[in-house]
């Protein structure tokens, strides 16, 4: 086992550990995160080798990079002592390689070129004889300094300094979060999901090459492009045909987004379908499900059917031009409202039936902050809830719920709507400005 330093992004810290753990499971890496805290962007872990380090961080969104740790200390002197003590056996290997030094300062002030050179020169004793190559060096060495803010500005001296050999930078640093920014997409809409968290969701869901990902509430397809970014083939469906067609047939539709990202070969299909009347054959295996179910705020929660059954009676016998009306190409299927809690039960049941053992279901559930959350979260006996990660807004928050399908030895509980004491009436609370709930008749 060797020591590696992970440099994490200070973004959605509550999701970082779950992402690291999920990637470790996906890549079959044993990882001890006992030292992890949400506060620190630096984390030392023990791994078998560089290959493990690469696989752990390469596709991460909430890590920035991973380094073979050569030494660290509270100041430069102790850093160099530590490097001499622990990393000397490595030096020879890099003696003649082209190389580059980089400096990362967490919360530090920007260094002038002169300061940078001065810092780098303190490493002269490593004795590297290779050429310095700023663009495509064979090996990169990185000094990572941690400062903190005091009295309105960064401290003059770092609190701690690490030095290491870069193994890789993450998908985030390679530009994924930026590139997938909604505003830069040919097609997005009011229901589109934030790029960063949709990529994180797909990491937690284990989207990867050779796997099929499905979003049953696909809308404008935000999760599909994220799933394809990680190499899975992606399918989606939605009860509303409009987002599936997009705004125009050439440049503003779901397919155009895949073209932009060069992943059209991973785009399976999108279908118009009511999730509760699903047309996917039972034996079609889906490996991951990622979605943002309809909560009724920017889109309706509807299913096929009619509100007024009495009025609709006998309509199935209506004939237009000698054809049964409901079999005509221009027939529009009526829709009726449905309860969110019932839909979530349907979603869990579907996932339990479809996913392979170890397969994951990830979905977002918004709630008012004054709600007792555990009473709202659905459970299914074959699905283990492994994460409930909160993104906090002011009066409400949404949480990413992650479930894993377990084998028959797992004995979970089923908690469907009738067993849950709370009612997720997020829509009503949202539109009433989250005023304290008045006692309503249940």
């Amino acid at each position, binding site marked *: 086992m060797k020591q590696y330093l992970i440099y994490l992004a200070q973004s959605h810290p509550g999701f970082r550990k779950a992402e690291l753990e999920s990637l470790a499971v996906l890549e079959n890496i044993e990882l001890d995160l006992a030292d992890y805290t949400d506060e620190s962007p630096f984390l030392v872990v023990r791994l078998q080798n560089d290959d493990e380090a690469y696989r752990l961080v390469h596709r991460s969104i909430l890590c920035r990079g991973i380094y073979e740790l050569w030494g660290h200390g509270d100041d430069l002197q102790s850093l160099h002592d530590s490097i001499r003590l622990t990393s000397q056996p490595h030096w020879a290997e890099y003696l003649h390689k082209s190389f580059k030094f980089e400096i990362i300062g967490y919360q530090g002030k920007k260094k002038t070129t002169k300061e940078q050179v001065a810092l780098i020169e303190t490493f002269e004793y490593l004795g590297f004889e290779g050429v310095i190559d700023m663009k495509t060096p064979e090996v990169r060495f990185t000094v990572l300094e941690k400062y903190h803010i005091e009295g309105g500005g960064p401290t003059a001296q770092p609190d701690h300094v690490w030095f290491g050999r870069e193994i890789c930078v993450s998908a985030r640093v390679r530009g994924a979060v930026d590139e997938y920014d909604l505003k830069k997409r040919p097609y997005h809409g009011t229901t589109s999901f934030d790029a960063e968290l949709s990529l994180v969701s797909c990491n937690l869901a284990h989207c990867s090459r050779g796997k099929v990902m499905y979003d049953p509430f696909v809308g404008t397809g935000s999760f599909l492009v994220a799933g394809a970014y990680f190499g899975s083939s992606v399918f989606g469906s939605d009860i509303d045909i409009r987002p*599936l067609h997009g705004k125009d047939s050439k440049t503003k539709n779901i397919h155009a987004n895949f073209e932009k990202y060069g992943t059209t*070969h991973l785009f399976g*299909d*999108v279908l118009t*379908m009511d999730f509760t009347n699903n047309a996917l054959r039972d034996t079609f295996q889906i490996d991951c499900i990622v979605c943002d179910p309809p909560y009724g705020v920017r889109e309706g929660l509807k299913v096929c059917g009619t509100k007024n059954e009495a009025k609709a009676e006998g309509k199935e016998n209506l004939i237009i031009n000698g054809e049964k009306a409901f079999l005509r190409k221009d027939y529009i299927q009526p829709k009726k409202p449905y309860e969110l809690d019932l839909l979530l039960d349907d979603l869990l049941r579907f996932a339990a039936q479809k996913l392979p053992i170890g397969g994951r279901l990830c979905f977002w559930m918004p709630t008012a902050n004054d709600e007792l959350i555990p009473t709202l979260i659905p459970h299914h006996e074959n699905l283990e809830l492994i994460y409930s990660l909160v993104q906090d807004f002011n009066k409400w928050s949404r949480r990413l719920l992650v479930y894993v399908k377990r084998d028959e030895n797992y004995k979970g509980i089923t908690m469907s709507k009738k067993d849950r004491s709370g009612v997720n009436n997020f829509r009503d609370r949202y539109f009433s400005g989250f005023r304290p709930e008045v006692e309503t008749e249940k």
Partner: protein
Amino acid sequence: MKFLTTNFVRCAVKSCAASSDSFPLVFSECQLVQQEQDFDAEFLTSMLDRLDWPALIKVAADLGNNSIPQVKPENIDPEDPESERILRDLHSLLLETQITEGKMICNHCQHVYYIKNSVANFLLPPHLAN
């Protein structure tokens, strides 16, 4: 809708789910276009595992293609030229063939679904939904 997807969908009516007649759907009056796609051997190999081969033969025949081999190709090795030829044929059929307009009919309940503007519609009328 891609040809590939015809292999994954059955009738959406709940009382049809258990019937083997609800899959595959019967395709008729279909308009097809060929749309070029990047070839990805690894992706196709993984899709091959998920295909129901008899259904693929049936739907291909509905669409006028009777040249599908009777048994699912096995031991596909993307490196081998013969395998690659098979994969390229499958690529063209499964991923490059788009059904832009057409009907899909359930052999169990005779319900008709439509494909319009390349998007298949599986929504049900009230008397078939719940």
